[in-house]
């Protein structure tokens, strides 16, 4: 249960730690960097790290979807928005008010610590049901048990795309 650093298992563990480091580093950049473009870059790194974590969790499909949707779509959209709306002006000011920095930090820290305590203290039922990483079961369930949700999500996506187009167009006319 305690593999050497140089064994194959040890290396995997090392890479796992590296992945976590990348994820958290990306997250820190995303939340703290002055420039929004760098924040998006951080977000992207964070998402790729999370994708790798999903891979460690034996679900390559979700991992790839994570990369495809978050990195390839969401991050690109956000950076488009940044490029359209000039972000440089925002970096000149400080935070919203004097309290918000420490206040935000304390709130976030409390939440994180609370969640961590819950995660560590709770005895989670330890019955690993390792899936084989196959896509079949996800597909079947999506179209049987969750078909209603699936359709609803599709409608939400459609409406959001149309809404986005309408809002962006309206702004342009004025």
């Amino acid at each position: 249960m305690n593999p050497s650093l140089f064994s194959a298992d040890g290396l995997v563990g090392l890479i796992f730690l590296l992945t976590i480091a990348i994820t958290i580093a990306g997250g820190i950049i995303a939340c703290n960097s002055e420039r929004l473009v760098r924040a998006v870059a951080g977000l992207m790194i964070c998402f790729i790290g999370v994708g790798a974590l999903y891979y460690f969790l034996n679900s390559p499909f979700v991992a790839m979807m994570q990369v495809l949707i978050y990195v390839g779509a969401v991050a690109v959209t956000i950076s488009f928005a940044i490029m359209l709306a000039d972000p440089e002006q925002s970096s000149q000011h400080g935070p919203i008010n004097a309290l918000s920095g420490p206040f935000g930090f304390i709130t976030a820290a409390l939440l994180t610590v609370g969640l961590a305590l819950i995660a560590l203290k709770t005895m989670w039922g330890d019955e690993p049901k390792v899936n084989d990483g196959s896509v079949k079961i996800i597909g079947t369930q999506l179209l049987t048990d969750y078909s209603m949700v699936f359709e609803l999500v599709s409608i939400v996506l459609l409406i959001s795309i149309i809404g986005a187009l309408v809002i962006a167009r309206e702004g342009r006319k004025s």
Partner: protein
Amino acid sequence: MSILTLYNSLQAYLLVGALLFGMGVYGLITRRTLIGMLIAGEMILVGASLNFMAFNRFTAPDPATGQIFALFIMAIAAAEAAIGLSIVIAIYRHYRSIDAQDVVKLKG
């Protein structure tokens, strides 16, 4: 439990999820700009879906449920990003600013 076998423990993932969530909350509070807030919001969602995935791997009776939830979260996040950003752009066109405070001030 060695540090090198962490990838087999549920808590490690939960902790990372909690951290991402916390950072997201922090960003949401401190960011001035709407896009910054959106970025932070995405991180909160990712932190949540990491939890789903971790539970799916380690405790769930059904190996697909968590993954499906993660997928749904992704879909919602994409929709949120699309609609949120279009609102940001519209606001920028109107107020010449994406600063949340300016937008509050300049009513009309």
